[in-house]
């Protein structure tokens, strides 16, 4: 009972709501000639923005983020509540243990991704018929926007949040991240953002989809403000998360952990973090300009009063393209981390793979105008961006060749994590090749803005990242919780998901080429049969997620089969620790040897038997 009072999630929610209303009232006190028109629209955007802002501040204060700075300013010792080492209560508030933050991320992101996925099911339900039959026309666009925006915002931190926070310190031999309180902050910012996005519905939704194009965004109902607040908070969370990762990897590596010995997962997280830190500020500034356009009637994006619709498109995609590599790189890191374990071989071409990741990081800044090929940009630019976009398939190809090489002459075990990683290779191949079509300007004339483009990014983001997300879950949740996830049902989940996924998005590549534009609630009648096939496959795909959730809950709550320290027989450092990892991580900071993947030598990690203990069968 005592725990209910004090700085925790309950207090945070209460203060958040109170803060929203305080901000709302404050916002209504602001008057001015340029915002007189709020009386006509009945939508006071300033009040909503201030409401969201003060609400988030209240939420964070309620969690206890202000405690340390305020107490230190007053010269008093800070509360150590955030450093608690035991108890379930830690997970429902501010905790600076990186392992707790990792698990908080896993559940929190899981909930919001479920909501995003639900919206996807609703979209496909509407698209069963060529004409509108299910949702109010206003609502279809909001559903489309909610699906895309929620998924993009949440999956940006989808790997780094749960898994890098938990495992990266361990993999480099550190006991914590460089900035533990900021680590916790990034999680709670993301949760606040997710709630704010859901409130968009109550404010009339938003009609722009996840890209928020101007000048349509200026015209939108005040649900657009929820989108702006969401992405601003996501951007802030991204930037801080990335900063934390970079600082940790640079400054906190244990003895022996040289740059050339970093595990692939750490390289994947590190390169992702670099992109996050540089791309997020562009997004935040752009959104600030949009909010000024929507409130004070500035003309950043209004051509008739001196602005330009191109300005928004360029700014957004300067963020947007590195953003999709933020989504792709962690998946590549996981792929090359897990393949060695289940092929019992070192990574083939370690330096080539790292160059691939660094190459992607660099090149991702030089390609963004391929989203604008037919928008009326200066035609001189198009051959350059065609070249740069096609060049980025080179470092991506390095990852492929390293993955394929790792499989050669291995001893391959088809466990559930391995299956998901192998599916990455298949899916990303299709995703990458469809990207080559899109990068070719003549071909892009037909496929831009169509379902071909949509299927391309679903193949790379869902077929790539989400499949490795599940690989990471099945692989590392035993380490994080100490319990195995049922293997048989995991395989059911995998096969259902893999087949349904390809059955959904494969035909969409064709449908897009046949002329169906994106985000359109109607389509030509001759595409009805194909769309029905896709919708039904999508429902099966959704069903496979339900199977996963049921398996996950059953395995961790009821079955609780102990995993032991090393169920997969991995030679990586985290598997030499008990499961779940104890609070202090290491008894003693380790010293790392020369080889992150000592497979194939017949030489065991010193002091441990070459034969892993038999894996418990759930």
């Amino acid at each position, binding site marked *: 009972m005592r725990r209910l009072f004090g700085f925790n999630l309950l207090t945070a929610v209460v203060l958040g709501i109170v803060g929203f209303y305080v901000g709302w009232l404050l916002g209504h006190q602001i008057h001015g000639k340029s915002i007189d*028109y*709020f*009386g*006509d*629209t*009945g*939508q006071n955007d300033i009040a909503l923005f201030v409401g969201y802002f003060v609400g988030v501040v209240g939420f964070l204060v309620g969690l206890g983020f202000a405690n340390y700075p305020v107490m230190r300013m007053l010269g008093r010792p800070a509360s150590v509540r955030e450093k608690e080492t035991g108890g379930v209560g830690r997970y429902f508030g501010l905790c600076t243990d990186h392992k707790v933050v990792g698990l908080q991320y896993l559940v929190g992101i899981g909930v919001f991704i479920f909501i995003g996925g*639900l919206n996807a099911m*609703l979209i496909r339900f509407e698209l069963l018929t060529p*004409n*509108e039959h*299910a*949702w*109010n*026309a*206003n*609502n279809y666009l909001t*559903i489309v926007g909610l699906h895309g925006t929620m998924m993009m915002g949440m999956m940006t931190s989808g790997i780094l949040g749960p898994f890098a926070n938990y495992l990266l310190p361990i993999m480099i031999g550190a006991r914590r991240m460089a900035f533990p309180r900021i680590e916790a902050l990034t999680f709670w910012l993301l949760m606040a953002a997710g709630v704010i996005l859901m409130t968009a*519905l109550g404010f*009339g939704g938003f*009609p722009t989809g996840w890209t928020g194009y101007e*000048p349509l965004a*200026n*015209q*939108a*109902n005040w649900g657009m403000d929820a989108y702006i607040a969401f992405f601003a908070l996501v951007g802030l969370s991204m930037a801080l998360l990335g900063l934390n990762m970079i600082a940790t990897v640079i400054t906190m590596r244990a003895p022996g952990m040289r740059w050339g010995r970093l595990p692939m997962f750490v390289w994947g997280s590190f390169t992702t973090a670099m992109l996050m830190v540089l791309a997020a500020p562009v997004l935040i500034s752009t959104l600030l300009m949009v909010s000024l356009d929507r409130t004070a009637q500035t003309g950043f994006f*209004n051509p008739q009063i001196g602005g330009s619709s191109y300005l928004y498109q360029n700014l957004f995609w300067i963020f947007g393209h590195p953003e999709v590599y933020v989504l792709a790189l962690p998946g590549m890191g996981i792929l090359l981390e897990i393949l060695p374990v289940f092929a019992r071989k070192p990574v083939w071409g370690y330096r080539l793979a790292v160059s691939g990741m660094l190459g992607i990081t660099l090149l991702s800044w030089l390609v963004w105008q391929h989203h604008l090929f037919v928008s009326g940009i200066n035609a001189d630019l198009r051959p350059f961006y065609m070249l740069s976009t096609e060049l980025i398939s080179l470092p991506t190809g390095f990852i492929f060749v390293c993955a394929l090489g790792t499989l050669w002459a291995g001893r391959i075990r088809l466990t559930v994590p391995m299956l998901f990683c192998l599916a990455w290779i298949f899916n990303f191949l299709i995703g990458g090749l469809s990207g080559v079509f899109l990068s070719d300007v003549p071909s892009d004339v037909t496929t831009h803005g169509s379902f071909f483009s949509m299927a391309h990014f679903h193949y790379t983001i869902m077929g790539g990242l989400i499949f490795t997300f599940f690989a990471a879950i099945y692989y590392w949740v035993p380490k994080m919780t100490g319990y195995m996830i049922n293997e048989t049902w995991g395989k059911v989940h995998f096969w259902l998901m893999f087949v349904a996924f390809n059955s959904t998005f494969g035909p969409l590549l064709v449908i897009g080429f046949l002329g169906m534009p994106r985000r359109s609630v109607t389509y030509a009648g001759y595409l009805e049969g194909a769309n029905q096939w896709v919708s039904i496959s999508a429902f099966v795909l959704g069903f496979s997620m339900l199977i996963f959730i049921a398996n996950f*809950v059953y395995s961790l*709550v*009821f079955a609780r089969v102990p995993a032991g320290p090393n169920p997969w027989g991995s030679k990586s450092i985290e598997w030499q620790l008990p499961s779940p990892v104890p609070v202090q991580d290491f008894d003693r900071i380790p010293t790392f040897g020369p080889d992150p993947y000592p497979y194939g030598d017949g030489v065991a990690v010193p002091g441990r038997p070459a034969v892993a203990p038999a894996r418990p069968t759930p």
Partner: protein
Amino acid sequence: MSSNARKGVVVAAAVVLAAVLIGVYVAFLTITPTPYSPTAASAAPAKSVHLTLQTVAAVGSKLSPNPNWVSYLTMENGKWVRTTVWNVPANTLVHVTLYQFDGNSGLRNPFLSQARGLVGGTFTLNGKAMSRIPPDDASHTFAIPAFDVIVPLKGVADDAKNQCGYAPCSLSNAHNTITFTFRTGKKGKYRWQCFVPCAAGFVYGFGGPMQTIGYMDGFINVV
């Protein structure tokens, strides 16, 4: 209760809660306006129905949570209702009488000030037959793009006496009476919209009521 049973109860409660929330969400999304079926004009030779509409400058708090929004209203059984979805039979003449109470805002594209797709090629404005109005005098339009039907609706003069404030407006307020007829074709769901940037306070005048069904947009369900 055993530990497993307790956990079972918690998990079951969570599943039920999730299902309820999803149900509420989906129900909220499916709130569709109830269509109104205009009735046949009595003693008319061909198949025909009659629709009586009004367009108002401010819809008022009795009819909408957005009292300052412009809107169309439909006469349903003697009462003015904020409905913009109508069920009309196929291959039928639709006779529309529209009372226009709003002031003018002017068309962004003057091309849309010429009527198209109407039976007889003209509409009547306060009794006089005509096919177009000066573009700057337009207050609203009624357009069904799929049928290539469009009718410009002239605005009430700025200095007219007894202008209507909040809807519903009565015929004693200053207004223009416009009548026109169009014919429906095959079965289907067709959208209609206003083309005048009349949404006060929104950029390009096309936000808010101009993008919300139930105000300046709707459907004609040809059944």
